[in-house]
């Protein structure tokens, strides 16, 4: 399944409806539905959201309807939404970038229904897109990787060179460099979102270059299995992937969507929800993105370092892309004392200094 779910930013586009000054109010009892583009238990992105859905259902004592395998096609999604609305559902949560346009149209057609979309691009009076500042957690993962690496060379697999992926890659490298300034971060783009066989093979390619930690920014765990087989360290993504590398696992960058969903849906039910004009977008402080428990090979010292950095990021004292930030080609992206603005995050198309690899679109 190749979706562009994470390919474009929540809240980047200015096509949004004007946001009403007053809060959104439900006109009937809350009925929530989640819509997935493939199976909910996909071992990655959907599974992380579905975990949030389960927590939401329990926390707010809701009976949530789930539709799986609704393709990212306007006609198919709209048919599903229409059906839910007819049956009285008034809170609909989409889970992929590919739903953006059709959901936005449905939001205009059904102003009494609240719409949410993970990694979507549109927002309005009754619609909010949401995504996480994943690079903050990747920064911590980078610190863990560098502190554990003995070869001073770590590797990472990524999908396509789009902003939300590139900030993970650069965040990882920046975190590694914060611990070991000279460390090499080797990055390979697989040019697919979903190809477990290839991801295992790419992982081997990076290990053959001498890296002793492999991190994956993709959904399949096969990259970690390959690392485990070679006795290398492994870092997963989206859900805790320790099952694929029980010995070598260092940690995983995970989503806890319930940290967003539960309070947000409560607001909708309470009639206090005001959609964010540019979409909801938060990091470690919100808890939606975090590190999974550390693996057995991560030392106490490393855990302490990472915990300290995490506290600093949450307190706003540490910013992964604070200046001086140098791109690999030698240009200064952020001067000392400044931080990278959000709009530059979404369009990030460069490697930071210290990364080995080729960005497919060219730098």
């Amino acid at each position, binding site marked *: 399944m190749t979706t562009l779910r994470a390919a474009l930013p929540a809240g980047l586009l200015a096509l949004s409806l004007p946001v009403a000054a007053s809060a959104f109010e439900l006109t009937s009892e809350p009925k929530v539905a989640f819509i997935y583009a493939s199976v909910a238990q996909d071992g990655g992105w959907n599974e992380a959201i579905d975990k949030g859905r389960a927590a939401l259902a329990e926390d707010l004592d809701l009976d949530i309807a789930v539709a799986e395998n609704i393709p990212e096609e306007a006609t198919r999604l709209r048919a599903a939404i229409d059906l839910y609305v007819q049956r009285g559902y008034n809170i609909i949560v989409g889970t992929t970038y590919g739903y953006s346009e059709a959901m936005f149209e449905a939001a205009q057609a059904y102003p009494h229904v609240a719409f949410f979309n993970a990694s979507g691009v549109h927002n309005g009076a009754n619609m909010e897109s949401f995504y996480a500042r994943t690079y903050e957690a990747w920064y911590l993962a980078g610190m863990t990787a560098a502190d554990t690496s003995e070869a001073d060379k770590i*590797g990472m697999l990524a999908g396509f060179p789009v902003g939300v992926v590139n900030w993970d890659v650069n965040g990882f490298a920046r975190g590694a460099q914060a611990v070991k300034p000279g460390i090499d971060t080797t990055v390979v783009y697989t040019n697919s979102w979903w190809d*477990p066989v290839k991801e295992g093979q790419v992982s081997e*390619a990076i290990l053959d270059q001498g890296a002793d930690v492999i991190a994956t920014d993709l959904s399949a765990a096969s990259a970690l299995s390959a690392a485990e087989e070679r006795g290398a360290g492994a870092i997963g993504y989206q859900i805790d992937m320790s099952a694929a590398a029980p010995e070598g696992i260092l940690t995983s960058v995970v989503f806890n969507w319930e940290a967003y969903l539960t309070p947000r849906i409560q607001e909708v039910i309470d009639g206090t929800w005001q959609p964010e004009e540019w979409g909801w977008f938060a990091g470690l402080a919100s808890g939606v993105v975090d590190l999974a428990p550390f693996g057995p090979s991560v030392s106490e010292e490393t855990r302490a370092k990472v915990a300290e950095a995490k506290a600093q990021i949450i307190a706003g004292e540490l910013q992964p892309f604070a200046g001086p930030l140098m791109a690999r080609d030698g240009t200064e992206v952020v001067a000392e004392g400044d931080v990278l603005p959000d709009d530059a995050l979404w369009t990030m198309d460069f490697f930071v200094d210290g990364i080995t690899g080729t960005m497919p679109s060219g730098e």
Partner: protein
Amino acid sequence: MMDFILAWLTVLPGYVVPLLLASLGVLLSERAGILNLCPEGFMAVGAMTGALLCLAGHDPWTAVLAGTLSGLGLSLVFGLAVVVFRVEQTLAGLAIVALGLGITGVIGRSHVQKPFPGLPRLSETAWGADLPRLLGQQNMLLPLSLLLLALIAWFLARSPAGLRLRAVGEDPAAADISGVDVQRVQLGAVLASGALGGLAGAFLSVASAHVWVEGMVAGRGWVVVALVIFARWRPLRCLWAALLFGGTEAIMPRLQALGVDFPVYLGAMLPYVLTLAVLALASMRRGARSGAPAALGLTYLRQDKH
């Protein structure tokens, strides 16, 4: 540099073997005149069946065999459709792909992302511990696939049955007159393509990824269809084509990891551009044989004979 090449050669079979196995199947089917677009579906059922048996605790070789048989089972549906009921081959092939992907999605849905040990590498076997890395990293499916290649090449070129199969693909009416049971030969060739496709799929899950996930064939079946055209329907050339297609795929992440500045997207296009070039060249050489079996894709009905 030597290290780089050695490492590349070590992983090469992982890319080449599934392409080679599935393409030999397509080749057999198409040399018998049956256009075969099914490998994506055959490989999907093979990969899922192999993985499910491994997860159920069976021996990896049992799993490989079951994967092979599942591909054969799906090809029986295809064979019945195109050989017995004479359904249009392109449409039937596409339907089989959809069927294979659909079945695996439904049956395999509660088994995704569960890792299993799978087929051991030679270095992990009792007798292979001292093999050099280049050989030790391989598994027994590599020699098996080369053996199958040799067998199929011999079968097509030298055996009477192979001659009959080729005759059916070139001129089914003439073969029919000379006493060849056209339908039986075609059905046999289609079943072989299913078995080889299933085996290729089992390689992906049991020997390579050690996990099942929906959609894990990820387009390799379509690469196989192009590969057979590129190989001009010759068994040995399937090996060279699989080496080219798989080799390109294998070297690109390695060049990326080295930081070599090269156009990744152009590299990924290369095998397909070459396939198009071969097709164009073959059709430009007037009078020369294009290599395609003359009756490929045509439905043979005895009463149409003239």
